[in-house]
């Protein structure tokens, strides 16, 4: 039986990804580390503030992990939530696990504690880069219902590797935010196919915004994570310069495109609409030579 990553809770994802009985949670329930800001607004709190952190092993490699729970406030980052992730990353700088896994599912900053959330996201970004500079790869997985948006979409791209499923979505401003600001003609947030062509896993893979794409299953994510740990990281000026070239080429080549389909056509996909129907293996094989990376 395939365990859907998309449908699973953060705790189920951790249980499915890590070696059996290897997970040890930090700041578990009895610690009751909840957000102090939600009570003031008469909003319910969660005992883990929507993120589960700890250590464990995957394919017998020691890793640290933080998993956001989309079911609590859409995985939004508040003061405590952000501080837990920062703690994991700083601990990685100190203890050098084989990798840090970030299972991201979030709309970004939690507006109920907006300023604290924004600073927290910034602290996460710096902490991710500190871990990488210390030689610890940071691996991001995105495949949940809420996608990965807002400042955490930036934080995700600070990591060493991003693994997405086709159902995963990654961006900065979510479709609703843009529609509210600029109107439905600019971006129709209810047009699911349009949203998918803009921020969905296959589009992100073809652009080179994610490194690996996997079918929606916990086992598939696990294999990709294991491979990413093996592959390691390249935090270097040369790698940054290479990324710069890729991003410069992208705006030059696709800057005038109006739709994801135009980009795919430009990448040599004769029938862009067929791409949505391909299963993952077929898609990955067909994408060889038809990706902007």
């Amino acid at each position, binding site marked *: 039986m395939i365990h859907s990553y998309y449908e699973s809770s953060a705790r189920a994802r951790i249980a499915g990804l890590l070696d059996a009985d290897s997970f040890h949670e*930090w700041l578990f329930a009895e610690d009751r580390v909840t957000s102090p800001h939600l009570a003031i607004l008469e909003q319910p709190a969660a005992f883990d503030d929507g993120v589960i952190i700890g250590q464990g092993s995957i394919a017998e490699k020691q890793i640290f992990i933080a998993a956001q729970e989309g079911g609590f406030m859409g995985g939004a980052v508040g*003061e405590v939530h952000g501080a837990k992730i920062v703690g994991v990353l700083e601990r990685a700088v100190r203890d050098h696990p084989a990798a840090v896994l970030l299972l991201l599912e979030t709309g970004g900053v939690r507006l109920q504690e*907006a300023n604290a959330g924004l600073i927290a996201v910034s*602290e996460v970004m710096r902490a991710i880069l500190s871990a990488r500079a210390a030689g610890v790869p940071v691996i991001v997985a995105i495949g949940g219902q809420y996608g990965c948006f807002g400042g955490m979409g930036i934080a995700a791209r600070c990591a060493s590797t991003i693994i997405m499923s086709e159902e995963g979505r990654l961006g900065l*401003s979510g479709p609703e935010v843009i529609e509210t600001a600029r109107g439905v003609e600019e971006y129709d947030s209810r047009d699911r196919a349009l949203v998918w062509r803009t921020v969905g896993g296959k589009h992100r893979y073809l652009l080179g915004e994610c490194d690996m794409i996997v079918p929606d299953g916990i086992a598939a994510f696990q294999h990709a994570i294991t491979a990413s740990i093996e592959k390691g990281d390249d935090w270097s000026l040369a790698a940054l310069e290479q990324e710069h070239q890729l991003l410069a080429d992208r705006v030059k080549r696709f800057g005038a495109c109006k739709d994801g389909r135009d980009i795919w056509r430009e990448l040599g996909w004769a029938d862009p609409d067929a791409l949505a129907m391909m299963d993952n293996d077929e898609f990955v094989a067909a994408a060889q030579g038809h990706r902007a990376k």
Partner: protein
Amino acid sequence: MEWKKVVEQMFPAGHEVRQEGDLLLGQGRCGKHTFAVIGTTNHTEVGAELALAMAAAVLAVIHDHPARPIVFLVDTSGQRLRHRDEMLGLNGYMAHLAKCVEMARRRGHAIISLVYEQALSGGFLANGMMADVCAALPQAEIRVMGLAAMARVTRISEERLAELSISSPVFAPGAHNYLLMGGLDALWEGDLSACLTDALEHVDATDHRRVRGLERGGRMFADPVTQRVLASA
């Protein structure tokens, strides 16, 4: 304050900062130091091209002027809210800029940022908030989102939010609240060149924001929670 005035006051020994569209680029001299200057103006939205241009400027400083301190002049109404920029992966462009800043820091460039007009969420994360020292002019506007929009999203009335924002720096816009929470190191008043010189003397590469937030009483939980994670058995 208009960027030309800011630059004149920061660099009394002279500067060559020019405006290209909404981008500011150049260098200025203050005391015995030359600073690279990278910034934006006109409350611009930061889209893919602008983030890329700032990243290019950072890489050029790393390449041409090893260890030269970098000043970011921040004036942005946030990330560009366009379908097209999202499709191109604006988050990736922002992250690339942030990584370039981090690379500069680790190669010995001091990074100082000044919010001289306004700073909003996504436009601020990739440069200003990546600095070793992040300062603002007292009248600068810093926020994630206006209270009206926040009320819409959170379904809490704007009146209630306005009321709460008096007692809590956590969701009220404003430079002073960011100072209390450690998001800003200082508000710069008076002699901007003296402020800059002082900032350069106190630069260090550690992220002190959560400790400052605790010391200043504006963010009481971030540091203790992180400490507990570090100490967990």
